[in-house]
């Protein structure tokens, strides 16, 4: 949007002569009012301590005259308003806070230019205006509730108009429309239209604002339009013919001044009474964002005057003691900087998007140099036609890459307790697999393999082998998937798994070597495993035999030293490649020894699975890595569920704060998906005190004694203060310690059994109160 505006600005502002520029001068005093003479060559500024005339040059303001001079500088020299006679360049009039209206003649030869002082008002005069055509007619509006028409030459008051309340502004109707009419604004929020010839009655009165009206301005082109502004922070445009409110602009602060922009039908300038120091030019057709704004002043802008018949220049004065000439090309365009767009995405990737529309052709590629020759829509047209469209993009259910269904599904279907670790892992792996999250499925299976506790029974072992088979299948699937869409996650998965495999291999080697150094009989595991692999197929027939096999206790005993050895299954896929040659012979010997001691091959399997029962630090590092890996991806569900499934015994060492963070995040997420039951399950299952505390809060409901209203601290049926047994049964008169049934109508009740017995045959309250209790 900004771009197109820049282009059109260049076109639109071309009419502006290049010589004029924004300039200012310091008036050495806070300025209340400003007026310029007929040919815009001189400007007068007036304030409490300043009354000066400046010449408006091309490059700067030049001080021509200081009117605040003389022997007796009194309140008559402090002006709240000033006006320049448009027919006689030498005559000025100012309104003073003491109620005087002072006429100045700058042609006087004396030092003081004061010509005459009218003292007919008894309170502050808020506004003075010369008539546009009548050289001698001066109109004033005062706080005392009256307006007076002065004849400057005769030095008399011709007419007095009485308004209901203090007059804040008076403005003559542009003489092209009416010679005799003027408008007045008062503190009660009314605007009045007067005819000078009829001082006895007001022509028209409109209640325009709630609160004082500070400024009114007749539209320079439309005879029926008048703008009003007031303390209620609004600018309004009225059609006087039809008594109708046409436009309203709500601004941020009380409005001090409004001035229609010449030759721009819909533009009006405004300044604020407080808070906001800038001058805003509004297009009344778009009442929300200023069309242009000028932010040069550092204090409240007190008056605005447009250069005659020039929409590109205006003058302003301010409490910050400056007089400014503003040039439109230096204006700020607030609309160019607003964000034309809003976007948000909810849980299911439903994206709602609001965007500012451009109704006019704005192809930025074609609007380069050529645009000057095309008739471009004016900036103003662009400006007023701003609107936004709101679209909601619903994500298609089939778009699996953009769906949180897996999260809901997993949260609901994951088994976290109640079964053996194997069962849980297998189930969860299947859940993950059914969602196409093969990596997660694989991880669950790895956990199962790593921590399985029941490998020594053959059927379980079968399951294991099936598990690994299916995970191989998964790998194949994955490969296919990779080929299809080369999903980064899957490839990452491959990397990760293979990476960790390598790691574990290395580690095993290290372990092996160190074990050898310690002289422990350790290194046969790889080889053993090899043998397992080799023998396993052939072992298939032995299934029955294995099942029935009762294990000799001795087989376990010598294995105790090998507790800390890495799990051979870690290296399962790469078992063959393990460089174990160095200790092969020794291992073989060991193996031989073992074999000789335990005469069947199956024995080897058994010892191997026995080793699995013992928590094994060698791989818990990798499990930690894996949990972190998922957490780093933003999938907090997987590590939390894995932690829960692993349980107390197998839980890897992770910083408690991190675990808490994962749990809290997961619980938050579940809440977000409104899966409160599951979230509560997780809280319940959690082993972290910080988490499990969460549903221990606000679970206490204090009971109060029915007679003294004291909280029952000890038991629910005896009040410690009044020593009375409360909640007695209406039938047996014993205290009710269990379930208490009572009627909400008469509040009598008692033991559940007694009550149901009673009401099985009767309708009325057992206490004898006569209430017909409803027992259902």
């Amino acid at each position, binding site marked *: 949007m900004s771009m197109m505006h820049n282009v059109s600005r260049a076109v639109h502002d071309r009419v502006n002569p290049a010589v004029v520029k924004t300039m200012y001068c310091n008036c050495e005093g806070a300025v209340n009012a400003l007026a310029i003479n007929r040919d815009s060559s001189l400007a007068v500024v007036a304030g409490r301590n300043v009354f000066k005339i400046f010449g408006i040059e091309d490059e700067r303001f030049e001080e021509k005259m200081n009117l605040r001079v003389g022997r007796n500088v009194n309140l008559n020299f402090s002006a709240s308003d000033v006006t320049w006679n448009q027919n006689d360049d030498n005559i000025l009039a100012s309104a003073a806070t003491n109620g005087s209206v002072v006429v100045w003649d700058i042609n006087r030869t004396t030092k003081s230019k004061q010509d005459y002082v009218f003292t007919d008002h008894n309170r502050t005069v808020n506004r003075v205006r010369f008539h546009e055509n009548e050289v001698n007619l001066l109109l004033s509006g005062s706080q005392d509730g009256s307006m007076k028409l002065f004849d400057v030459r005769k030095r008399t008051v011709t007419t007095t108009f009485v308004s209901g309340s203090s007059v804040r502004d008076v403005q003559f109707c542009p003489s092209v429309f009416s010679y005799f009419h003027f408008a007045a604004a008062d503190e009660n929020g009314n605007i009045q239209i007067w005819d000078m010839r009829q001082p006895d009655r007001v022509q028209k009165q409109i209640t325009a604002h709630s609160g004082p009206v500070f400024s009114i301005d007749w539209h320079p082109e439309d005879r029926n339009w008048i703008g009003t502004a007031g303390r209620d922070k609004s600018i309004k445009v009225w059609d006087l013919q039809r008594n109708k409110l046409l436009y309203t602009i709500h601004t941020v602060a009380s409005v001090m001044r409004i001035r229609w922009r010449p030759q721009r039908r819909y533009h009006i300038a405004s300044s604020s009474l407080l808070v906001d120091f800038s001058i805003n030019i509004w297009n009344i057709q778009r009442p*929300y964002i200023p069309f242009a704004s000028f932010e040069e002043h550092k204090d409240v802008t007190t008056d605005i005057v447009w250069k005659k018949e020039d929409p590109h220049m205006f003058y302003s004065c301010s409490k910050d003691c400056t007089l400014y000439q503003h040039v439109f090309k230096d204006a700020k365009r607030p609309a160019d900087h607003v964000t034309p*767009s809003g976007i948000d*995405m909810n*849980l299911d*990737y439903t994206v*709602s998007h609001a965007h500012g529309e451009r109704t006019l052709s704005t192809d930025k590629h074609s609007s380069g140099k050529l645009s000057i020759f095309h008739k471009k829509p004016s900036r103003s047209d662009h400006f007023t036609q701003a609107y*936004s469209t709101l679209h909601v993009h*619903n994500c298609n259910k089939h778009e699996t890459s953009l769906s949180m269904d897996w999260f809901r599904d997993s949260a609901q279907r994951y088994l976290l307790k109640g079964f053996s670790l194997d069962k849980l892992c297998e189930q969860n792996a299947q859940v993950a697999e059914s969602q196409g999250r093969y990596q997660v499925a694989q991880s669950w299976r790895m956990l199962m393999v790593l921590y399985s506790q029941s490998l020594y029974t053959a059927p379980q072992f079968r399951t294991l082998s099936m598990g690994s088979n299916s995970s191989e299948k998964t790998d194949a699937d994955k490969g296919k998937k990779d080929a299809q869409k080369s999903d980064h996650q899957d490839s990452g998965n491959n990397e990760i798994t293979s990476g960790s495999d390598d790691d574990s291999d290395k580690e095993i080697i290290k372990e092996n070597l160190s074990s050898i150094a310690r002289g422990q009989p350790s290194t046969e595991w790889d080889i053993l495993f090899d043998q397992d692999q080799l023998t396993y197929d052939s072992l298939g027939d032995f299934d029955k035999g294995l099942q029935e096999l009762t294990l000799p206790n001795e087989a376990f005993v010598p294995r105790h030293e090998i507790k800390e050895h890495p799990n051979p299954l870690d290296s399962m896929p790469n078992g063959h490649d393990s460089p174990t040659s160095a200790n092969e012979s020794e291992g073989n010997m060991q193996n031989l020894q073992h074999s000789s001691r335990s005469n069947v091959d199956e024995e080897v399997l058994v010892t191997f699975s026995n080793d699995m029962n013992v928590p094994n630090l060698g791989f818990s590092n990798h499990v930690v890595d894996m949990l972190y890996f998922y957490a*780093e991806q933003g999938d*907090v569900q997987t590590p939390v569920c894995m932690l829960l499934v692993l349980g107390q015994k197998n839980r890897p060492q992770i910083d408690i704060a991190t675990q808490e963070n994962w749990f809290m995040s997961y619980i938050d997420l579940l809440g977000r998906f409104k899966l409160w039951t599951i979230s509560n399950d997780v809280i319940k299952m959690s082993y972290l005190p910080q988490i499990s505390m969460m549903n221990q809060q606000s679970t206490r409901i204090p009971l109060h004694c029915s007679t003294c209203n004291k909280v029952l601290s000890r038991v629910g049926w005896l009040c410690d203060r009044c020593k009375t047994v409360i909640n007695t049964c209406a039938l047996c008169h014993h205290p009710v310690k269990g379930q208490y049934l009572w009627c909400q109508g008469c509040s009598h009740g008692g033991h559940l059994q007694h009550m149901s017995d009673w009401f099985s045959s009767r309708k009325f309250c057992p206490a004898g109160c006569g209430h017909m209790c409803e027992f259902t």
Partner: protein
Amino acid sequence: MFVTRHIPAEHKDLIHDVSYDFHGNRMATCSSDQTVKVWDLGEDGQWNCTASWRTHSGSVWRVTWAHPEFGQVIATCSFDRTAAVWEEIIGEYGKGNQSNWVKRSSLVDSRTSVTDVKFAPKHLGLQLATCSADGTVRIYEAPDVMNLSQWSLQNDIQTKLSCSCLSWNMSRMHPPMIAVGSDDASPSGGGKVQIYEYNDKTRKWVKVETINIVTDPVHDIAFAPNLGRSYHLLAVASKDLKVISLTPLSTRDAPLAANQVNSNKFTIKRVAEFTDHESEVWRICWNVIGTVLASSGDDGCVRLWKGKPFTITSK
């Protein structure tokens, strides 16, 4: 792939912000026409406007929902130099099934346009951050979560750059952190994104980083939901779209305590940068788990970005 539905928003001027509530079943829009509208997702999957009211006396830049634990509460900020907190009155329905929202508080400390307002993550209680065009970031807190009309100004931070947007870090592990973006146009002004962190000891917010990667005016900024991550992802919308990762220098092997003084150093890395909008990027948002980023640009397109090698998945 996406089913797009047009909603007659009937805002009379530009819409500046759209915001879903915590569960994604309600939506609020705000506009220059000084109104906010609340939309509810009906049983039939249609969005129905259930409230529309004038909130400010100037353009409303942003609207944001509080965590539902605190009630149905939204905050707005405006050109009129104020931010406001609104609460829905349950059970009072006006004509046409319109719900009733009342102003609970007006935050009037700013001297210039308030450009963004955001609620803190739930674990920090009921806190609100605002930033304004004169470069002040203010942190408010409602000491009593039951009383939404009382907000105390906890801190104000002078950023020295005109602020356009801010974002809270959602992490529970890290001390409270805010990223502030500036729309300051001068390229010489240096980094336009500043990171502030709350120091528990001094009870003050201190600047910990200026992200010098971003020197263009910033329109929007958003931390990804942290969940379990050890690093923070920050998306920045300016002339283009950037994703920046902030990794605390202490790793998980030496977990940092929340009150550790030297915890405020990060490795800052540009993770991704997209210029596909070929224009200003105005607004951005993350999905709930911080894996997908949506952006809206001056070209009128919505783009979704995903994964490590971020790719366009939708237009």
